[in-house]
């Protein structure tokens, strides 16, 4: 099987390329024109094609003899409109090129961000509602772009009869990516841990990449949506403690109850800030919830349908990330 991987030199992309190769597949890696790939150390069998989804005019040749598109490319920084143009318009360009090719299979990297966190209680799983309508535009630019990227991809797949698998990872962590938005609010060396006993929807990058490679090759994944988490997740307090200890960063953790902070944020938003959505993310209730709301998480669906179990346990993931 030959896979075309977008975002191949990103944090997740590099591991997905490695996982595909390890599972015996061929990889064509789409990377931006000015990006250096030498230091990644890909074997010669990885075919590198150059293109930037924001501006590339001719993407069709990248699909020659490709069996599956693993679409990971998305902007994670920049302004809201730049992220939309890069992530969503880039996906439109990519899939328009695919429409003229023989490839009929896609694995899309979506995100936990697309869920409607405000309305979900208890366990967040693949049947949970996703954010839509006017409420979507109250969320952050990354969420708006990822939601639209998934929407656009589903429309293309439906129109062209492609087999689509949507994978929605939680927080992807690993080497140099240990500190997560859900760790709380950092003020110098002080870490205000909001809801210290909440579980984190974690997936280590190597586990996450393993599921992407599996889903790309397994016909049972076609037409399915999977959340990607390694399990119920570590608690924020212990995860951050491990991160500070193993990374050697000096810092103090201060626990604050989630309900108390959420109450203050909601009250301030409705009164002092007059529901202004230009505020920093942590001060807008729906964005606050999408980072910090205490829910439960499960990878049951991937286990049941694909027999997938994360290859590495938490202790091994810590070793891989910090040693």
């Amino acid at each position, binding site marked *: 099987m030959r896979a075309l991987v977008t975002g191949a030199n990103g944090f997740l992309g590099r591991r997905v390329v490695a996982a595909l190769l390890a599972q015996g597949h061929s990889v064509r890696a789409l990377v931006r024109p000015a990006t250096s790939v030498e230091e990644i150390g890909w074997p010669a069998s990885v075919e590198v094609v150059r293109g*930037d989804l924001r501006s590339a005019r001719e993407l069709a040749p990248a699909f020659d003899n490709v069996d599956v598109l693993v679409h990971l490319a998305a*902007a994670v*920084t920049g*302004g809201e*409109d*730049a992220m939309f143009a890069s992530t969503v318009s880039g*996906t439109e360009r990519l899939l328009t090129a695919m429409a003229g090719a023989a490839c009929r299979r896609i694995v899309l990297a979506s995100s936990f961000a697309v869920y409607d966190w405000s309305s979900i209680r208890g366990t967040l799983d693949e049947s949970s509602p996703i954010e839509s309508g006017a409420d979507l535009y109250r969320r952050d630019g990354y969420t708006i772009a990822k939601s639209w990227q998934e929407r656009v991809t589903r429309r293309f797949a439906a129109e062209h009869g492609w087999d689509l698998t949507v994978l929605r990872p939680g927080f992807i962590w690993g080497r140099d990516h240990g500190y997560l938005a859900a760790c709380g609010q950092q003020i110098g060396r002080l870490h205000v841990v909001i809801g210290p006993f909440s579980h984190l929807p974690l997936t280590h990058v190597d586990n996450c990449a393993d599921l992407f490679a599996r889903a790309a090759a397994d016909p049972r994944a076609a037409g399915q949506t999977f959340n990607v988490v390694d399990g119920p997740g570590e608690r924020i307090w212990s995860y951050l403690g491990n991160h500070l200890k193993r990374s050697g960063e000096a810092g103090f953790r201060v626990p604050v109850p989630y309900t108390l902070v959420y109450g203050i944020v909601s009250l301030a938003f409705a009164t002092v800030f007059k529901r202004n959505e*230009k505020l920093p993310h942590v001060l807008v209730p729906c964005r606050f919830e999408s980072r910090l709301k205490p829910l439960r998480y499960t990878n049951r669906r991937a286990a049941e349908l694909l027999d997938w179990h994360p290859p590495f346990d938490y202790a091994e993931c810590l070793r891989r990330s910090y040693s």
Partner: protein
Amino acid sequence: MRAALIGAGQIARQHLSCLKTLPAVQIAGVCDLSPAVAESIAERYGVPAWFTDHTAMLREVKPDVVHVTTPPTSHFRLAMDALQAGAHVLVEKPATATLAELEELLRYAAGQQLVLTEDYNYVFNHATREIARWVETGQLGAVVHVEVMMALNLFGPGGFADPNARHPALTLAGGALADFLPHLASLAHRFIGAHTRAHAIWTKRRASILPYDELHAVIEGAHATATLGFSATAQPDAFWLRVFGERAQASTNLFETRLTFERLRDGPKPLQPLLNGLEEARAVRRAAIGTLMRKFKPGPGTYDGMWHLISGTYTALAQRTPVPVPVEHVLEVNRMVEALKPREAES
């Protein structure tokens, strides 16, 4: 009045946010080459129709005013199509890639009794209007000289110097800096009027795909002079406008809310620096807090000038009075811009 937008990127959202606050305006359609961009903007701003073909939008929506908010090299064709569909046009700066294109648009608009106006938003910022008021009331005295200096880092990821995706503005003469030149020129024009002579120096300090990252120019008007500057390497980001009058000097950072005046005062001369200094300190302190609070408040934020210009333009069109940026100002500013463009030998 029925408004429609061609181009639904970042600056279009500023236009839409303003239009949503104008009760006499109905946003009838938006258009973008990307279907997802067009549809999402329509969903977000409650616009009833979205298009990927601007001619279809002009035909079906029949707008009274069209906002052209696409990359600059497409402005001429889109603005002409909008004029030919019988709509007034508000075009984002730079209005066109060349002066000849602009003159053609203006000739056509005049023949059809239509208005074509360009967005000089910083001319209508609160601080600029306040300085203009000091000029008009005589508090500043006759304007002697104007300094306009923008420092803006263009080297960030996804910006003008991104080597992966060439920014459309790089096709303009002068490259990315040409995208900012109308801001500089329109501010100078506001206080010294049309230019009689102009000289610009275009240089490059840092290796990048930008043809230039530094511009400095001297302008002579009928009664006053101006210097214009742009630096992509000087930091922190700031947009200084200083107006020197015969009785006072005004200074504002248009990226913030800071506006200070130094003026001639009655009383003992040795006390003047003290009194001016204390007054300036108060103004700077107020502005520091005001700039922070502005981020927490709904409304236009740094785009207050654009909101003022757009609402003023719609009021003028409805009342058939002169728009805030009349055709002669558009021409004079663009002639100044043309005079400042890099010569062949430099480019």
